[in-house]
């Protein structure tokens, strides 16, 4: 069991960064993304016996991660319906700290504004379009892998990808 844990820790180190990137882009909250990644790895570890080698490990893992992120997003929308958000979110705090520590304040501010604009535009995408787009452009997944993760047809994935990109360009005014 200890050996299995050690080997799994290596696997965590290998996929952790990409997983954090997907989760953060999906949830836009550092603490939530951190927890989602942890949950996904622990879930994968406890259910490793159900893994089938028809698909690479990262496809299976990403599917679990995305399902966790979807649940968290739903829970957050339910919470937001009842509670008024006060102050800065953890993501905003982290970004603010980055901005504080940065050497070029103007560049940092511009980058922050641009990212906020992009995040708002991505948030306005349809649920499937958003998921497919994030997996492709931030998770480095191919349309075929996304098809395996989401259960959608590969051609449907390509259509969603194109529509998401077109809508994003329209929302962002064709430029970044």
């Amino acid at each position, binding site marked *: 069991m200890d050996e299995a844990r050690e080997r799994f*820790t290596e696997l965590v180190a290998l996929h952790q960064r990409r997983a954090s990137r997907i989760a953060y882009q999906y949830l836009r909250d550092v603490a939530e993304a*951190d927890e989602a990644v942890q949950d996904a790895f622990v879930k994968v570890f406890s259910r490793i016996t159900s893994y089938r080698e028809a698909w690479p490990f990262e496809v299976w893992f990403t599917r679990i991660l995305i399902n966790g992120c979807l649940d968290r997003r739903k829970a957050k929308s339910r919470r937001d319906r009842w509670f008024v958000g006060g102050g800065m979110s953890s993501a905003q705090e982290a970004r603010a700290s*980055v901005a504080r520590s940065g050497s070029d304040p103007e560049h940092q501010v511009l980058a922050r504004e641009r990212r906020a604009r992009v995040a708002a535009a991505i948030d306005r995408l349809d649920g499937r379009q958003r998921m497919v787009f994030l997996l492709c452009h931030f998770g480095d997944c191919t349309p075929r892998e996304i098809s395996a993760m989401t259960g959608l047809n590969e051609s449907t994935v390509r259509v969603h990808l194109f529509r998401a990109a077109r809508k994003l360009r329209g929302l962002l005014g064709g430029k*970044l």
Partner: protein
Amino acid sequence: MKRPIHLNDEYLYECYLAQRQGDAADPPIAEHLADCDHCAARYSELALVMDTLRADGEAETDEIFTPERLRAQQQQIARRMAAVGRPAQVISFPGRFVQRTIRVSTLRSPRWTAAAAAAGLFLGIALGASYEWEYRARPSPPALNTRGARLAPAVRSPSADVGADADFLSDLEVALEHPRTRELAAFDAFTPHVREVSDSR
């Protein structure tokens, strides 16, 4: 004049995806991009927007998820993995509290408590039984002949009625002359009585 044919956006995006994955684009599309400056410019613009979007997202995540944060996350995952498969354990605070409560309650309930409860119950039953026995042994009071009283005729003589009326009226007069309520005595003194009014007439 023949109108030039250009690639639509969907083809351009497919071409971008293929290039990003390291695959070769469709030969006709690749040929057209090589020949048509307009489509090549559109493709370059699309690729620039998508690449910037991606690079920006990566940079943002890398700034937030620093190596230290990732290491802490890894340690946290390792801790949680170590707990997988272990039997569930009771959380320390309520567990200790409950154990201490149980121990204290078992130590402070000696046997004499049960004996005292039994003795109290016995005494209660004995007293109740003796009281009931005494009540039964007491001679019963003579029963009232209610039936006879009910059947007795309520006949009165006319002379007795007249006497009773006179008594009632005299009682009423006395009561009016001397009010029993001390607080009203002053008002009574100021108010002329019926008799005084009739006398003055």
